[in-house]
Each structure stands twice: as C-alpha cells, then as structure tokens.
C-alpha cells in the first residue's frame, strides 16, 4: 500500500495501480505501469514497471508530477486450452493453503495472490492436466509458521469434501507442513484415498523452483491408489527423485535445502523418479483401510510443550503445568533433570514434583530431543523416577507429532484414562514398531 500522501496524489491524478502513467521528476520523465507497493518497502516510493520489463522506484516529493496515460484493462489470459475432462483420467483435487505453488500479481488486491483457477494452474503445470482431471480450490494464503490448530480442522473438512476424488494434493508452506500432515493423519480416520502435501523450498516464480517436480510426483503417487496422508518433497537436491513420506513420520530437517524433509526412524514410503514418474515402494503397503472413514476433527488445544535443558528452572516448567496435556521433550532416552546431589542441582527434586503434578492433573508424555530413536525410561534410574510419576513414553513418536496427537486424543475423550490409552495406540503409523538398522540417516 502506498502512503496516504502518495495515495492522495494518485487519487487526485485519477490514477490507480495497474494504470500506465507518466511520472515527471527533476531527473527525467518515466513511463510505465504503476505496480502495487509491498508493505515492507518505503511507501513513499512509486514503483513503475517500464516497457523493458524493469521495475524502478521513484520517490515522491513536491517536484514529482504524475499523469494518466492509459487505464488498466483487465488482462486477457494468454489463450490457454485446458484439456477436456476425461473419465479415464484420475480425478484430483488441488487445494492451496499457502506457499507459492502458483501466484500472480493482483492490481486490485495490491500484491501477489494465488493463481489457482484451472486456467492459471494449467499455465504453470500443464502436465498435471494432461494426466488428471483437476479441480482446484484456495483454502487460504497462509505462511505456515502462522498456522493454528483451527486451520488444521478447516483443512481436514475440506479434504473430506473431496473424498469422492481419486486423490487430494495440498499445497502448503514448508515451515509447519509436518504438523498439518500429522493433524490430517489423525483427523481423517480410515481415509480411503491418498492425500499428499507438497511444498516448495524455492518460490514458484523462479524457473528453478522445486514446486513442479514435487507436485507432479505427488500426482504420480496418487495414481498408485494407496490411501493415507503423505508429504512429497525432493529426495536430494537434484531434480531426479521425490520422496513420499508418511505424514506422521516426516520432519523438516534443513532451513533451505530442497531435500529438507526426511523420514525419521524409517524410510520414505515410496520414491518417485522424475521425469519418468515411476513409483518405487520402499515399504510394503496395501490399498486397504481398517474400517469406515470418520472425520474426527475435535481437538483440545490446552497442551504445552517443553524442552529439557541444563539450567532449566521450575518457573519454566510451571508455565506448562496445569494444562490438560504436556509434551516433555527430554534428553537422550527421555530424561529431565530430577536428580539432586549438589549445590547446582538442589531444585531438581522440585522439578520432579512439578512433572509429577503434570502427570496427575493431565496427560504428560515424554519424547526425545535426539529426534531419532525410541524413548525408554526404564534404563536409567532418573528415567524410572519420571515414569513412576505417571509420565507416558511416546515411544519413537516425533515431538511435533506427539504434540498434535495429544491435542487430538484429548479432543476425542474427556476421560484421562481413555486419553492415555489412545495416545499409546499406533493410530496412523506415528510409532515405528520395528526400527530398521538402516533407518537412521
């Protein structure tokens, strides 16, 4: 948005964003299309796209004059022919929640918006339409770091509405994609179609974006007809193979690499070769589900999460005590500092007491900061002390998944005992029953 002062100048001249204008300043005359101003920029600087494609900034001051050359005409879409619907092709719903799978400038909105009409999506990804009948929907344009559990519920409901399709692809920001993947895994009980989340570590307005390969690989996986919730992203940094990860076993392990997403304690479910689209299963899966589909979106969001660390004090633990659920991310096999033996560790007996209260007042579960491997509080006596107070082992559930699962479990039942039982059940593959010798990468 331009500053009020600049907007006033534009209004007086009868000029709007998108119009072709001539701006006269002390340094010369510039003609171009008036572009939207992003919030982060200096709002007193006019942005013009010149005829040669370059954008320039012209700072507004009293000496600047602006006049309208031509009004913006709604651009005609490049003539695109979306292939006709074909019953022999799989039906896939592409839902957009955020990230940049496809985007365009909107003069009306003054910024970048998802380009998600079938025509627009087709321009970006024609291959998608050649091989599938696509229905697209924008659920939001959310930076995934801003997502809340309420968004997970809305997404689950949207997916449920497309259950009649052969598969659903969800464009999602990478920051919290694993949380949403876990939430959908629990909320879409016995889902009978593949639901695949895809993202991009490089924005789709770059020719080198990883979004196309991830999206197209997701489509190839959907054709295999294996139900469940998955995340599909690059295997390595080359554009040669994508990995399809189980939604409850995947974690973003790098801030920027294309192959940031890794399956933990297990292999991906499958890999997809690019560009051939050949799917190779790395795990045995079958197309069957254990029962009727049920949409179970109820959540109890009164759940805290706290990481153990040297120097942790009782105040930090008090901040999450008293909640209906707490995820304790312990060190090693699942430990918090509860042994008291010298001046530095005097408060550890209190730490143990606070943890004990958490387990009485609510459901307290232990995961590990190691990320990989299984929690076992039976090995060391300080683990035994914690377990004896009623803290449950989360086995090898990822901390983020345990957190989502605890919200879900506490939303499904009011009984603490029932909640604890459900938490310890392997609902959606979130517990790796048997860790393979080569499951550690």
């Amino acid at each position: 948005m331009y500053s009020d002062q600049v907007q006033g100048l534009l209004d007086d001249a009868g000029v709007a964003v998108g119009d072709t204008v001539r701006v006269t300043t002390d340094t010369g005359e510039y003609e171009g299309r008036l572009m939207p101003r992003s919030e982060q920029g200096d709002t007193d600087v006019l942005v013009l796209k010149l005829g040669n494609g370059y954008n320039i900034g012209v700072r507004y001051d009293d000496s600047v004059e602006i006049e309208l050359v031509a009004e913006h005409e709604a651009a005609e879409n490049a003539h695109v022919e979306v292939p006709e619907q074909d019953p022999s092709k799989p039906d896939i719903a592409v839902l957009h929640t955020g990230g940049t799978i496809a985007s365009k400038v909107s003069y009306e909105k003054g910024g970048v918006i998802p380009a998600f009409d079938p025509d627009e999506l087709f321009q970006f990804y024609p291959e998608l339409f050649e091989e599938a009948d696509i229905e697209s929907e924008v659920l939001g344009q959310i930076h995934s770091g801003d997502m809340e559990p309420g968004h997970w519920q809305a997404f689950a409901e949207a997916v449920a509405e497309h259950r009649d399709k052969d598969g659903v692809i969800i464009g999602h920001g990478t920051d919290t994609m694993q949380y949403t993947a876990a939430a959908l895994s629990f909320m879409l009980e016995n889902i009978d179609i593949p639901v695949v989340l895809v993202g991009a570590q490089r924005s789709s307005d770059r020719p080198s974006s990883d979004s196309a390969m991830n999206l197209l690989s997701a489509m190839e996986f959907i054709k295999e007809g294996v139900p469940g919730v998955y995340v599909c992203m690059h295997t390595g940094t080359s554009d040669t193979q994508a990995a399809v990860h189980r939604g409850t076993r995947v974690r973003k392990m790098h801030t920027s690499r294309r192959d940031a997403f890794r399956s933990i304690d297990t292999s991906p479910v499958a890999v997809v070769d690019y560009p051939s689209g050949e799917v190779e299963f790395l795990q045995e899966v079958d197309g069957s589900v254990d029962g009727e589909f049920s949409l179970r979106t109820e959540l109890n969001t009164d759940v805290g999460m706290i990481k153990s660390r040297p120097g942790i004090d009782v105040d930090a633990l008090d901040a999450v005590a008293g909640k209906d659920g707490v995820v304790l991310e312990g060190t090693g096999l699942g430990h918090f500092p509860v042994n008291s033996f010298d001046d530095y560790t005097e408060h550890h007996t209190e730490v143990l007491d606070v943890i004990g209260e958490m387990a009485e007042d609510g459901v307290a579960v232990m995961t590990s900061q190691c990320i990989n491997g299984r929690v076992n509080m039976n090995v060391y006596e300080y683990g035994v002390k914690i377990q004896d107070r009623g803290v449950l082992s989360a086995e090898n559930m990822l901390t983020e998944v345990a957190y989502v699962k605890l919200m879900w479990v506490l939303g499904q039942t009011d009984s603490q005992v029932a909640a604890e039982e459900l938490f310890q059940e392997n609902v959606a593959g979130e517990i790796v029953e048997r860790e393979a010798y080569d499951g550690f990468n």
Partner: protein
Amino acid sequence: MTDSTDYNGLGFRCGIEIHQQLDTDTKLFCDCPTQPGEQPDAAVKRELRPVPSEMGEVDRAAQFEYLKEKSFTYNVFRDV
C-alpha cells in the same frame, strides 16, 4: 533502397553486456572460492521451467529454451 549504415532506418538494435571478473578470494554473496577445481566432487541436475511473469505472460525466449528439453548439470567443488 535503405542505406545499410542507416541504423535507425533499419530499426537496428544492439545491446552490449560487459562482464568484469573480480579478483577476490571468495564469491560476492557466499564464501565459495572463485576458482573451480580440476575434478568436480559432485553434480546436481536441475530442470528449469518458464514461469509467467508478474504481467501474466511467459517470456518468449524462456519458452523457446524450455522446448529444447535441456536439463542443466551443475558441478560441485568441495574446496580448492
């Protein structure tokens, strides 16, 4: 007949792009060395796709290159 040196009349256009290599220890925006080694340690293969610009159109030259179906291999040099 147009004089072949009447550039304006011909509508002749010419662009000159000048590149100057900097004599620095590392590249400008990262700590990578400026000289490649003899043998690459790894290679990364990339596909490039033309994308619609802010104006909603795909650049003709980009589209033309895309239709050649090239892929690009980047050589990775660990250190020099």
